[in-house]
């Protein structure tokens, strides 16, 4: 009886030690779920979800403080991916804004006064320019977040939807009528 108790206690202590060691040795810094969610978010940093960027929104989702359907640039597809990751049901888009086609900002260079306000607003440094010099958008880096539109005092920034051309064209989903066999 005593030996059995000792053996069980010994095993428990050993396993406890292993677990304790593993907890220290394989400790994960930060919440890996946040990074996984952040990887799905489109990184426009537009703040349309109500959070000041993609990472804060990801943190809020991971903490269960925000719904997964608030990201307009991510669209339905993004909601589906988040639902898959978190083991939830996909829900329809529920943000305050409209789903829009992807676009890039465009500065009317004749009107720009070089105030640098848009440069300060751009979350990804996609605007080139200096004080009292004309500014321009680096289109390849623009995420289409629209954050530069509001601060412009002369309203010279407009959002242009990305048009389909030969390079970004893709094959459509095949649509054909299914007819009843005679």
């Amino acid at each position, binding site marked *: 009886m005593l030996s059995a108790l000792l053996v069980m206690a010994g095993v428990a202590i050993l396993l406890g030690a292993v677990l304790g060691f593993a907890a220290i040795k394989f400790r994960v810094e930060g919440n890996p779920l946040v990074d996984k969610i952040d990887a799905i978010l489109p990184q426009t940093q537009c703040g349309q979800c109500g959070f000041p960027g993609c990472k804060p929104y990801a943190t809020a989702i991971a903490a269960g403080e925000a719904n997964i359907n608030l990201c307009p640039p991510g669209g339905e597809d993004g909601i589906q991916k988040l639902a898959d990751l978190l083991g939830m049901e996909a829900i329809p888009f529920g943000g305050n804004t409209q789903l829009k086609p992807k676009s890039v900002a465009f500065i009317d260079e004749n009107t720009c006064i070089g105030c640098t306000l848009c440069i300060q607003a751009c979350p990804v440094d996609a605007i080139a320019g200096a004080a009292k010099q004309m500014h321009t958008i680096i289109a390849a880096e623009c995420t289409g977040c629209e954050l530069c539109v509001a601060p412009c005092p002369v309203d010279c920034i407009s959002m242009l939807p990305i048009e389909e*051309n030969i390079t970004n064209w893709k094959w459509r989903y095949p649509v054909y009528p299914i007819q009843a066999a005679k």
Partner: protein
Amino acid sequence: MRTLYKFHGGVHPPTHKAESTHTSIVRAALPSKLVIPLHQHVGNRAKPLVQVGDHVLKGQKIGLPEGRQSSAVHASTSGTITAIDLQLVAHPSGLPDLCITLVPDGKDEWITHQGVDPSQTPHSELRHQLRKAGVVGLGGAVFPSDLKADARHHKITTLVINGAECEPYITCDDMLMRERAADILRGAELMRELLGAKEVLIGIEDNKPEALAAMRQAALDDKHEHMEVIAVPTLYPGGGAKQLIRVLTGIEVAAGVRSTEMGVQCFNVATVYSAWRAIAYGEPLISRIVTVAGNVERAQNYEVLIGTPVNELVALSGSKPDTDRHIMGGPMMGVDLPAATVGVIKATNCIIESSPALFPPSPPTLPCIRCARCAEVCPADLQPQELYWFAKAKDFGKTQEYHLFDCIECGACSYVCPSHIPLVQYYLFAKGEIRVRRQEKQSADKARERHEFRELRIEREKQEKAEKLAAKEKAALDAKKHAAISAQLQAENSAAGTGDSHILEPVQSEAGLTKE
């Protein structure tokens, strides 16, 4: 006798090749205008080098290659540039792209051009010549040949020259081999030199006995060593690069691997012919052989200037009035042209005039019955029925697990499908979506990086500012303190003006004492 290998699957569609091989290649008449797209190759679009109103000569460069993966574009004849604008091009999207419109002056006057002796020219210079001459893969992939003729990254042992031409109706490579075998073999030898390959295997399907004979004769006449002209069994898609490599060498190119990593490079016969013309004669790629077949009076092969409008080309063959579509390529893999006015491009190997009688509309599509006939014929050894389900359900992760990107879009699966399902269209759709998602992921990662860097920078600037401020404050405080101390000292000094002499006096007296 060389042992030949077999690839998985394959189909035997009616070849319809005899119609267009009765007569030799005819030089197509000079068209009223040429519409030359600047993006005819894989890679970046060429940059226009001319302006509207410029007079250009035949062979003059009008599009400059931009970036590493790009190719030059040339004026196909002499004449005047009348427009540089967006026009419909031979592309399945039906979207316009940047084109140069050239109205010929009828003189067909060449620019001064001169070839080089390949044995006396360094390889890098030869590759540069190919790039400058706009030589791209003419088998349909239009990949810049200068990049393929580069053996610096992989050791190439075998060069496969593709003269299989497996698609029905198309005979442009067949006629080229019959009539210009010597130059093809010289081009093959040039490529062999560039790649440092030990052997050249020329694969030609056995339904082209005349081409086989001509190529064998030319190899004998020119005493080409390391070269073998091999008849391969006629089986669609035996002209696919991976399939032909498998048949000739037995090497199965694995999923996601390039044949060059396994020591094999593959060129089409028309590509090596053009490469030879570019190197030995300095002639850029401004024309190619195009088969015109289908619903026409006289199916035939033409040597066509790049940019020739398709309607002017088919008129030469007598396109019949009930033609409703123009197919570029063959009936298996070809695409419908968005309009008859588009110009012939470097990828145009064949124009099939289609009529409802020739290609009746496909019978109604029925549900998949999982008969797996598509899996039996798939030359890439895939499971097309599974890929179809996943692509249809937009489950793109699963399509990739089932190796969607190994699909060569040959259409053998759609050809045998008893339910007439347009299988390849589903694969094209899935491939496009996956590519777009990859790009989006890449740009999102880049945006995250830039955003994080910006945050870091702002934080750093804040910190630097704070440090500067602290330093300033400290300096001010120090200065104040210093000022206070010195003021105090001064005050003390001036208050006790005689104090100093008091202290000094006894020392002096002491010194005086010791001296004394």
